[in-house]
C-alpha cells in the first residue's frame, strides 16, 4: 500500500495562506479546497505513472495560485467592510474602529450588569475585576473583528 505523506503540501498551503488577505472563514475555505485538489491531482498523476515528487510538482504548478491569482481571489472575496471604508484613510478608519469597539463593549457590559442587577456604586470591590473583564472582552472583540470581518 502506498503511504500518503501527510501534509505533503503543508508548506505550500501555509505560504498561500500567508499571502492571502481575506477574512478567516474565506481563507479556510480556499485553503481547504486547494489542499484537497492538490492531493487528489497528485494522486492522479502518480496513478498515471509519475514519481511522487514529479506528481506533486506538476499538481502545484497547475493549482497553487501565483500572486496574480491571489490578487484576483482577494478582489473577489473582498469583505463589504473594506469596500465601504476604501475611501477612508487607514488612520481615520482605525480611530473609527476603536470608537465603535469601545461603544460596543460598553453597551454590552452595561447591558450585562443591568441584567444581573448589579449596582457598581454599592460594590466598589468589583471595579478592578470588571475593568479587567472589559479589557479582555474588548481584546477578544477586536481580534474577532480583525479575523472575521476585515
Amino acid at each position: 500500500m502506498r503511504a500518503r505523506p501527510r501534509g505533503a503540501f503543508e508548506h505550500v498551503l501555509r505560504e498561500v495562506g500567508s499571502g492571502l488577505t481575506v477574512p478567516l472563514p474565506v481563507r479556510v475555505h480556499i485553503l481547504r479546497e486547494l489542499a484537497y485538489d492538490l492531493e487528489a491531482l497528485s494522486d492522479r498523476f502518480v496513478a498515471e505513472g509519475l514519481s511522487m515528487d514529479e506528481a506533486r510538482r506538476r499538481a502545484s504548478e497547475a493549482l497553487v495560485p501565483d500572486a496574480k491569482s491571489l490578487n484576483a481571489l482577494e478582489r473577489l472575496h473582498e469583505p463589504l467592510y473594506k469596500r465601504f471604508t476604501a475611501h477612508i484613510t487607514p488612520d481615520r478608519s482605525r480611530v473609527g474602529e476603536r470608537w465603535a469597539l469601545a461603544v460596543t463593549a460598553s453597551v454590552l457590559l452595561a447591558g450585562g450588569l443591568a441584567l444581573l442587577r448589579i449596582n457598581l456604586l454599592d460594590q466598589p470591590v468589583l471595579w478592578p475585576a470588571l475593568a479587567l473583564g472589559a479589557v479582555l472582552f474588548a481584546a477578544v472583540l477586536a481580534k474577532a473583528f480583525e479575523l472575521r470581518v476585515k
Partner: protein
Amino acid sequence: MSGEDFDVQGFARDINELLILSTLRAGAKHGYQVALDVETESNGLFKFRHGTLYPILHRLEGEGLIEGSWSKEGGRRRKVYTLTGTGERHLSGETDRVQEIVSRLMLVLGRPGEAPA
C-alpha cells in the same frame, strides 16, 4: 454586436469561463477535475496554470452560474461544483456569441483585403 463592443481581453476571459461551464455540463466535478478535463478535451490547447482556475470558479459561483458544495471523503473535506440552470442558459447564449465572433473572424481571414458584408 458592433466592432467597438468587442473586447479581445474580455473575450479571452470569457473563453476560460465557457470552458469551465462546458466541462461541468457533463456533471459535478472538483476543481482539479475541471482543470484536467479542460486540458484533455482541448488536447492540451487550454490549460489552467498557477491557480488561475480558482478565481474563475469563485466568480462563476458568486454569479450563480455554478454551485459549489462541500462533502467529506475519508476525513478530507472537498468541494464539488455543479452547473446551475442559469449557468446552462448563460453557456448556451455565450456559445452562440462565440460562434458568431469566430465566423466573422474566419470571414475576414478567408477574404483578405475585402471588407466583410
